[in-house]
């Protein structure tokens, strides 16, 4: 089987969510098929500046073919067009100009893939919102398998993506919430799709003591791994944690791993360690009591999956449907939507060892059942086999010249607001997710998990 993986950026040093996702999938599928990666010469996702050489180079044994980006992104122009498409009634022509402005516009890449489509059985397109995915989904719809990596942002409600979601050969979703959102936006329930997600190369053994020695961490701690950014909910996390630290002076510390885009508050119990390599990262995760995920928007949290793989519970932002859904389905994490819930849930995870261990064990099982690499690979291969048996759907044509310029498309934000939200609790496909409900056999007494109602409590 011959597969093409098309993604906006690619490289061993690129750690963006969708790009890393694409690399992991390409490397794993290379064990079962001949894989060629097709991408741009860009390295920076803000400007799409051509920084890598045109041509073919191997990356971890996979041939990677790069094409130049025609023009860099102009942030002002993109901002203006985004405002028009997201906030105002607009036309389809406006949306197409917005897509061109967003980039990375590489007609050479699109033409190459379209011309050599016959060589491939399937073409995996990563990230629905970019130029390459939209154009190729239309040009090679019969072979296009889309990995949307969609978050709940207005782009998903831009009308030009509807026909793409309805017309591709198959969809590989990251989570049931992402699938529900896309199906709500595009009414594409008839298109073959499966919730797959992604695995992670979690080491067999970790050495928490080594991490504690190296970074002189003696106290128990909660950990956050990722970009330290206001958009990732870190501001709210710091605010909540400082209040929590004042209430529980002997409670957990907070360790942050990742590059900081915002100021990290100076606090004796907040430790920013910067960007760490994988060994240190996994040792830190193993040494922690729990992982905190304050992000509002995630299509799939890889770091949460890694925490579960190592048997650590997660405290997630309940405002993020995907994280909340994952916590509920896995029974391996708690969530919060305001400070009181944050404090109570963090205290429960901190002070109740058996609960912490039980959630961690559930997480480990959940990861092994749904996100271990053999499971992910099998889902992809089964999907390809099923698609080979079925017939492709027809792609809806673009409206005519006049119709494209008619300003009657509602603002994407309005459309997004009308799409149902919330965690997908039910099993997505015939019980493939078994939600372990305790039913009557509740694990522990209600009060036992909670801090005392008055005064300061001493953590265990």
């Amino acid at each position, binding site marked *: 089987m011959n597969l093409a993986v098309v993604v906006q950026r690619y490289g061993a040093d690129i750690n963006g969510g969708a790009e890393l996702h694409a690399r992991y999938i390409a490397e794993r599928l290379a064990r079962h098929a001949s894989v060629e990666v097709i991408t741009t010469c860009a390295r920076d996702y803000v400007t799409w500046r051509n920084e890598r050489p045109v041509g073919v180079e191997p990356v971890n044994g996979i041939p990677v073919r790069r094409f130049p980006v025609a023009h860099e992104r102009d942030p002002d122009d993109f901002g203006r067009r985004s405002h028009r498409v997201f906030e105002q009634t607009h036309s389809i022509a406006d949306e197409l100009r917005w897509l061109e402005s967003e980039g990375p516009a590489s007609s050479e890449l699109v033409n190459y893939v379209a011309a050599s489509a016959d060589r491939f059985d399937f073409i995996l397109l990563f990230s629905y919102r970019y130029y390459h995915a939209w154009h190729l989904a239309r040009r090679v719809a019969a072979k296009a398998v889309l990995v949307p990596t969609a978050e709940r942002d207005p782009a998903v409600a831009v009308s030009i993506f509807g026909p793409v979601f309805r017309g591709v050969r198959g969809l590989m979703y990251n989570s049931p919430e992402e699938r529900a959102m896309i199906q709500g936006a595009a009414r594409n329930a008839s298109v073959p799709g499966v919730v797959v997600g992604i695995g992670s190369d979690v080491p067999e053994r970790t050495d928490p003591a080594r991490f504690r020695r190296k970074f002189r961490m003696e106290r128990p701690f909660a950990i956050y791994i990722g970009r330290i950014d206001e958009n990732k909910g870190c501001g709210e996390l710091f605010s909540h944690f400082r209040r929590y630290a004042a209430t529980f002076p002997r409670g957990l510390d907070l360790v942050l791993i990742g590059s900081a885009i915002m100021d990290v508050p100076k606090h004796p119990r907040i430790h920013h360690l910067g960007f760490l390599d994988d060994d240190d990262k996994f040792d830190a995760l193993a040494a922690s009591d729990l992982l905190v995920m304050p992000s509002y928007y995630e299509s799939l949290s890889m770091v949460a999956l890694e925490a579960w793989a190592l048997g650590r519970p997660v405290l997630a932002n309940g405002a993020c449907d995907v994280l909340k859904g994952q916590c509920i389905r896995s029974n391996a994490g708690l969530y919060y939507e305001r400070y009181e819930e944050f404090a109570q849930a963090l205290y429960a995870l901190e002070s109740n060892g058996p609960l912490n261990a039980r959630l961690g064990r559930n997480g480990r099982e959940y990861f092994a059942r749904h996100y271990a690499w053999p499971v992910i690979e099998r889902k992809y291969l089964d999907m390809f086999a099923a698609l080979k048996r079925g017939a492709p759907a027809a792609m809806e044509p673009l409206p005519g010249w006049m119709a494209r310029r008619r300003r009657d498309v509602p603002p994407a934000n309005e459309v997004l607001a009308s799409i149902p939200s919330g965690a997908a609790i039910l099993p997505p496909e015939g019980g493939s997710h078994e939600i372990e409900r305790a039913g009557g056999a*509740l*694990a522990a007494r209600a009060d036992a998990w*909670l801090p005392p109602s008055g005064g300061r409590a001493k953590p265990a």
Partner: protein
Amino acid sequence: MSDFSVRSDNVDVEQIMRQIRTRIREKRGVDYTEEEIRELANVKLEKFLDPRGVRSDLLQQYRQVRESAETARNYRFEDTTLYESSRAPVRWLRRLLRPILKLFFNPNPLIEALHIQSRLNESYNRSEALSYELIHNLVLELTRASIEVKNLKMRLESIASRLDFDERRARALEGVVQYRPGAVPPLQPPTGSPSQTDTDGNERRTRRRRRRGRRHGGGAGGAHGEAGPATGGGAGTGSGQGARDAAPQAPASERPPSAPDRSDS
């Protein structure tokens, strides 16, 4: 810290979260739900607030002022606005002649400036909405605070009346008690009669100092004792010590067998 035990292999995250929320509700001890507070905030504020301090129709006034503003709230200005027309041929003609127009002057800075102005207007409108929200929340919080103050006032009144009742009861009971010779004399309040203080006060203080000196023996204790009133030790160590030194308790044998002091009754 509360004790707990995990009783089974399964946990239900949703149930834990429900319990957490129940606990938060219990801790907050909410008398009014958010909806009820909002409802109360919409009621005439005179019921709760001093009408001279806050106008109860503040929100309505503010809303009216905003709605009656005659100037347009904003306009849209995009790069195509200058060339727009309701008639398609005119639009087409303008587009055709646009390059010629650009030979005479550069409309781009104009477009850019008006676009920025439009964005500024929008930002102003947004901040105005925030002000409205702020005032709204202010009124809400003020209502909440006034309700609480009212409740606290009522509690204070209730406690004051109970205290008053208890005092009266205590005095009535004291009036019932009779002194019987041979029984243990009741404790005397620390104050004696003015004449006693004047005539015996100095002598008692001297005796007390002497006793203290003997008790402490020599050394540091003696030095401390000798410092006494001259160094202002009593005042310096706080009113408690000073007051105790200034008003010593007379031995039981020296007290007159009088009834309890009822000077306050």
